[in-house]
C-alpha cells in the first residue's frame, strides 16, 4: 500500500473555533459577574449565587435524564414530572418513618435518613420508569404527537394516584436539624441545605460524565444519541439501552424530587409538573441530548432566577424564558447541539 497516499494529516483547531466551542462554558461565570455588578453588595451576591447554583443543580438532576432520553430515542416525555412528584412523596414517607433519626441532633443519623429516603425514592421511581417505558412509551416510538398525549396522560394518572395514596393535601416536613440553618461567610449567610444540594449536584454531574465518557454503556449511549442505527448495526439492542437510560433518568427525577421537596419543605402532587417548565427550558437551552449543555443551562437558569428574584421579582420567571429565547437566537440548536447522523 502506498503509505504516502494516506499519510496522516493533523488539522489543528483554530483559536476562533476553540473559543466558539468554549464560549458556553464562560456563560455562567459571565452571568455571575454581571449579577455582582447589578447587585452591588458582595454578601447579598454570594448568598444569591449559592442559592442559584443550588437551584440550578437540583434542576440539572431532574433534567439530565430527560435530555438523554430525548437524544437517544427522540422521545418527548411530558410525564417526566410525575417521577419528580412520586420521588418526593416516597422520600418524605421514608423520612417520616425515620422521624427518630431525622430529628436527632446527630449529623450522621440525619444524613443516613436522607440517604435512605433518596435510595428508596430512586428505587421506586426507577421501577415505575421501567413500567412507564414498557407500557406507555414503547408503543408510541417515532410518533411525537402521540408521545406528548400519552405521556401527559401518564402524568395525570400519576398525580391522581398520589392523591389516592397520600391524600390531596400538601405535605410539610422540616429538614433534619443538620441541614437547617446557615453558615456565615464574612457577612453572607448561606443556607446549609443549599451547600448540600450543590455538593450532591456536582458529585452527580462528575459521576455522570465519568459514566458517559469512560464506561462501555456510557459510550454506547453517546454513540446512540448520535447514530442509533449504527449502534444497532454493530449488534447492540438500542431498545434495551434506552430502557436502561429511561430508568436511570426516572430515578434521577425521583432524586431531584426529594431534593426539591426538602428545599421547599412542602410537597404536592403537582410539584413535578410545576418545575417541569424550568426543566424544559434548561433542556432546550443546553441542546436536546447534551448533558454538558444541560448542566450549563441549569446553572444559568438557577443563577438568573435568583438574581432576578432579588432585582426585579415581577419578571423573575419571564427572565428565564427570555434567557432561552436569547440563547436560541445565538445558537438555534441550544448551547451544545448534538450532531445527529442522517
Amino acid at each position, binding site marked *: 500500500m502506498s*503509505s504516502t*497516499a*494516506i499519510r496522516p494529516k493533523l488539522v489543528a483547531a483554530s483559536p476562533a473555533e476553540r473559543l466558539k466551542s468554549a464560549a458556553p462554558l464562560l456563560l455562567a461565570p459571565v452571568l455571575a459577574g454581571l449579577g455582582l455588578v447589578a447587585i452591588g453588595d458582595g454578601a447579598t451576591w454570594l448568598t444569591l449565587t449559592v442559592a442559584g447554583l443550588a437551584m440550578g443543580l437540583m434542576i440539572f438532576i431532574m433534567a439530565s435524564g430527560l435530555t438523554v432520553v430525548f437524544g437517544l430515542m427522540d422521545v418527548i416525555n411530558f410525564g417526566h414530572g410525575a417521577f419528580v412528584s412520586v420521588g418526593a412523596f416516597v422520600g418524605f414517607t421514608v423520612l417520616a418513618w425515620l422521624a427518630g433519626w431525622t430529628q436527632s441532633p446527630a449529623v450522621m443519623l440525619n444524613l443516613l435518613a436522607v440517604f435512605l429516603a433518596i435510595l428508596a425514592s430512586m428505587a421506586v421511581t426507577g421501577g415505575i420508569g421501567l413500567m412507564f417505558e414498557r407500557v406507555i412509551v414503547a408503543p408510541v416510538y417515532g410518533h411525537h404527537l402521540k408521545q406528548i398525549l400519552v405521556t401527559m396522560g401518564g402524568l395525570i394518572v400519576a398525580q391522581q394516584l398520589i392523591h389516592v395514596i397520600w391524600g390531596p393535601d400538601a405535605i410539610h416536613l422540616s429538614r433534619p436539624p443538620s441541614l437547617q440553618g446557615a453558615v456565615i461567610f464574612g457577612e453572607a449567610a448561606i443556607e446549609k441545605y443549599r451547600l448540600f444540594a450543590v455538593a450532591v449536584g456536582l458529585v452527580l454531574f462528575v459521576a455522570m460524565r465519568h459514566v458517559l465518557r469512560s464506561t462501555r454503556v456510557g*459510550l454506547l449511549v453517546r*454513540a446512540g444519541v448520535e447514530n442509533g*442505527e449504527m449502534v*444497532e448495526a454493530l449488534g*447492540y439492542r438500542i431498545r434495551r439501552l434506552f430502557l436502561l437510560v429511561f430508568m436511570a433518568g426516572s430515578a434521577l427525577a425521583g432524586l431531584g424530587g426529594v431534593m426539591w421537596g426538602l428545599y421547599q419543605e412542602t410537597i404536592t402532587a403537582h410539584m413535578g409538573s410545576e418545575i417541569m417548565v424550568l426543566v424544559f427550558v434548561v433542556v432546550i437551552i443546553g441542546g436536546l441530548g447534551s448533558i454538558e449543555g444541560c448542566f450549563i443551562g441549569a446553572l444559568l437558569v438557577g443563577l438568573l432566577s435568583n438574581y432576578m428574584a432579588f432585582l426585579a421579582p415581577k419578571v423573575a420567571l419571564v427572565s428565564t424564558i427570555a434567557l432561552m429565547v436569547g440563547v436560541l437566537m445565538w445558537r438555534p440548536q441550544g448551547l451544545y447541539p448534538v450532531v445527529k447522523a442522517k
Partner: protein
Amino acid sequence: MADILLRLAGVHTHIGPYHILQGVDLEVPRGGVSVLLGRNGAGKSTTLRSIMGLWTPSAGEIHFDGTRIDGQPTPAISRAGIAYVPENMGIFADLTVGENMTLAAASGTMDPQRLSWIKELFPPIATFWDRPAGTLSGGQKQMLSVSRAIIEPRKLILIDEPSKGLAPAIIRAMTDALRQLKETETTILLVEQNFQMAKSLGDTVAVMDDGRIVHAGTMAELAADNGLQERLMGLSLEVHQ
C-alpha cells in the same frame, strides 16, 4: 453450484409510500468480492439496508448462511455475522477513534492481533487513536468505518461506496486494503460506482436499475465484454469510464 452465502429472492422494500425495491434477486457466493453496480437512485443502498434489517422488506426472502434473516431485528442480523459500512460511514464523531473501535468489537474485547493488522492496513487508525473521530478527514473516516467492520471476524461485510468523495490516491489505498481483506475468509458485498475499483476487486457482479437486478454474472465476463458494458453503460458506468 457454488456455495451461496447470501441470497435475496424477490425482495420488495417500501420506504413510506414509495416502492423502492421491486423484486430483487441476488446471490452472493461465499468468499471473494461481489460488486453491486447501478446508477444513482437504482436502489443499491436500499438493498444493503434491507439486508441489514434497517428497512424491513414487505415481500420476498433473505437467507444468510442457511437461516432466514428478513424480518429479524438489526442487532440479530449483525450478530449472525454481517458487518455494515454505510454510505455515510456512520462513524461516531463525538467518540474517539479508539472508542469507535472498542464499540465495534461487540464481544467486548479487541483481538490484539487483528487490531495490529488493521493498524497496518490503515495507519491513520493508529495515529489518531485518541482523537475524536469527527476530526478525521473523509478518507480517514472511511478507513475507520471499514476498520470497525473488520475488528471482529465476520462472514459478510456490506460496504456502500467506499470511494465516494475520496481523492484518487486515497481510493487506490482503499482498494489495496480491500484487496488484502479479500485474502481473508471474509466475503464482501461491495456497492461501487467507480468501475476501475469495482473491476479490480470484483469476482462477481450484479447491476441494478429501478429497484431490480438487470444483470448478474462474473466480473471477468463483464470486463471482457464491451458490448455488454455498452448495454449497461447507460445504467451505471457512464460517468466513470
